[in-house]
């Protein structure tokens, strides 16, 4: 029981870390930010997941990030 929980929480921690480093949590962060600022009311529409990822790569088109040598 104790071991299973520890393994599960270690796996969850690893998944959280990998997703964070790969940037997979970007949409969740955007949603959380949007809710914190605008609330859940639809005064300012929130982008859907698909719209968000499109917007993200399209922004990178006009604002490229360097990669190191």
């Amino acid at each position, binding site marked *: 029981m104790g071991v299973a929980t520890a393994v599960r929480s270690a796996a969850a921690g690893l998944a959280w870390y990998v997703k964070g480093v790969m940037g997979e949590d970007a949409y969740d962060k955007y949603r959380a930010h949007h809710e914190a600022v605008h609330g859940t009311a639809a005064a300012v529409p929130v982008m859907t997941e*698909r719209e968000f990822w499109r917007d993200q790569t399209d922004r990178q088109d006009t604002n490229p990030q360097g990669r190191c040598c």
Partner: protein
Amino acid sequence: MGATSKIPHDAIDDPDLTQDPALPPVALDPRIHEAEEAHWTPVKVAIWVAIALLGGLSWVMLAVVRGETVNAIWFVFAAICTYLIGYRFYSNYIQKHLLRPDDRRATPAEYKADGKDYAATDRRVLFGHHFAAIAGAGPLVGPVLAAQMGYLPGTIWIIVGVVFAGAVQDYLVLFFSMRRGGRSLGQMARDELGRVGGTAALLATLTIMVIIVAILALVVVNALAESAWGVFSVGMTIPIALFMGCYLRFLRPGKVTEISIIGFVLLIAAIVGGGAISETTWGAALFTIDKVPLAIGIIVYGFIAAILPVWLLLAPRDYLSTFMKIGTIGMLAIAIIIVRPEILVPAVTEFASSGAGPVVSGTLFPFLFVTIACGALSGFHALIASGTTPKLIEKERQSRFIGYGGMLMESFVAIMALVAALSIDQGIYYAMNASPALTGGTVQGAAAFVNGLGLTGVSVTPELLTQTAINVGEESIVSRTGGAPTLSVGLANIMQQVAGGSGMMAFWYHFAIMFEALFILTAVDAGTRVARFMLQDSLGNIFPKFKDTGWRTGAWICTGIMVAAWGAVLVMGVTDPLGGINTLFPLFGIANQLLAAIALAVCMAIVAKRGLFKYIWIVALPLGFAAVVTITASILKIFSTVPSVGYFAQNAAFSNALAAGETSFGTATSVEAMEAVVRNTMVQGILSIVFVTLAVVVIFTALQATWNAWKTHASATSEDPAVPSRMFAPSGIMATPAEKATQALWDALPKTGKRKAREH
């Protein structure tokens, strides 16, 4: 002096930063941090004494004992213990006296938060991000080439250099950019140094970018030329990336980890498949490509990749590259610790003093310090540390862990690359890294050349070279210059002892080639894009239409100019009768170190304007060193009368031979080749002059700004105004007891949309 008292964050009760009383503390009083650090429990003392003793012992084993062989584990211990001490004590000193972070101030990620570009990111995640962005092929290639001077000079420079120079630069630039809303190095240069210094910094950055992209591309061409297996598997990364891009765009947006795993599996399949295909007649015929057509292929690829939308090629390959980078580096670290290879290379070879090394020409000073750029001090990091990372950082104090700590990790990568290169047979090392002009490109020629070097304990037979080539699944390993193939042989050699045995060497070799090519191609593509925007921005000052980055024609013209610029240097490198890498690599290192000097000069001006003259030596030390090294190296490259070192001396030697009507000279066997040398050395010489002139202008304007600040005692700041923070997060990798207590207060808050740091 005395101006220090004017620094606003010195006053702990700064009224501007009064925090919301309804919230738990957003920052710990700096005195609590200091008390925690000063609290030396017996266990803590024992741990640090152990670290110091182990580190000391390792350095003694490396530098003093210098037995017949030395075990690789001492490199690992010397590095890790020195990093720990440097991080704990030196970076703490810098934090306390020079930077003085104030966690009561909101970072750009908080006060400019938009949930996209500016978004507070967990420090440990951001550390991974930042490391993935700064680590590239540089720290893998430079140490391999510098291994010809022996293991000791490179090891000392990588480890000591990072503690006092590289990590300091990264930390300072990250911190100063964070205080300025994530402004880029170019913008900071303009703010601090004025128009002349700023423009010189911008021009230098642009030309340095061109040369760096060109030489990275040259490394890839050298690794893939004549290798059907390599060309196939690296070529397959393009359709794999396109597939991943479409998957993320149309099928499952945002499933980044999932598609990266799928991409990784496809990548491994491409490596395995490449082995089979290279053995078929049609495969060998189709994918065995000479250097020149391969270079042209990469130039065409570079242009197309830079104008395609990001989502299609760059973004997916970037995911793949991050995945491979962190995975492979972790794997190599574990393998080195398990295998603990014996190093047969002497501590210092005669090439360190004679400067006649076949891999790169020149004596230890200054050429060791420009050959190993990344890993010890890399100016390119300043472009990453300003811009992306500062917009994501949660709290000011975290900049130490991310900036200083991230660079220590990169330095460790360089140490592992050095160990991998040192662990292969010395004879093979020289046969692989001497230019084709010296070896004739044959196993017999290479063996004759290596055995003729007259180095004690270094010999090689044609049979050994042929057998090694067969082991790694290549036609030949003679004169595979550029560092990447050597590193791959070293990595394959170490990995096969952990997994797969000698039968797996060919797989590991091509895995390593793939790993390097992947992020070099990403750097080429991203570098071209960044350079294109810089060019458009500059041209826009004269022709306003260029400022519009959405203007297709303008974008294509500027991309074309940048690709043509690095493409010309690349073609020059692959056709160079003198060997290419050995003449061009110093230019890469000089360019990178000059960029570091520029970044440090900007930092020095900022420190001076803050009035912190008592601690300015922290910046002046690495700046002075980088300036002396690069200016000396440039002057030697320009004025040296030794043809293998000085570009113009070489130029004159070949011009005179041509004028005398000779049809072959040195390693050039035809009039065309001689003319090529004359042309190449002229271009390389002019580039050296341009770099050093621009850097001197920047350093001079920084000295002027520093002097003015000293004279007038005025502390000016170009920082963004301080905004009180409304969040809390620990500063280092582990939360201290006081930080945990404060974190608990935040965790106990009712959920009101406040961010909560995850602990596990």
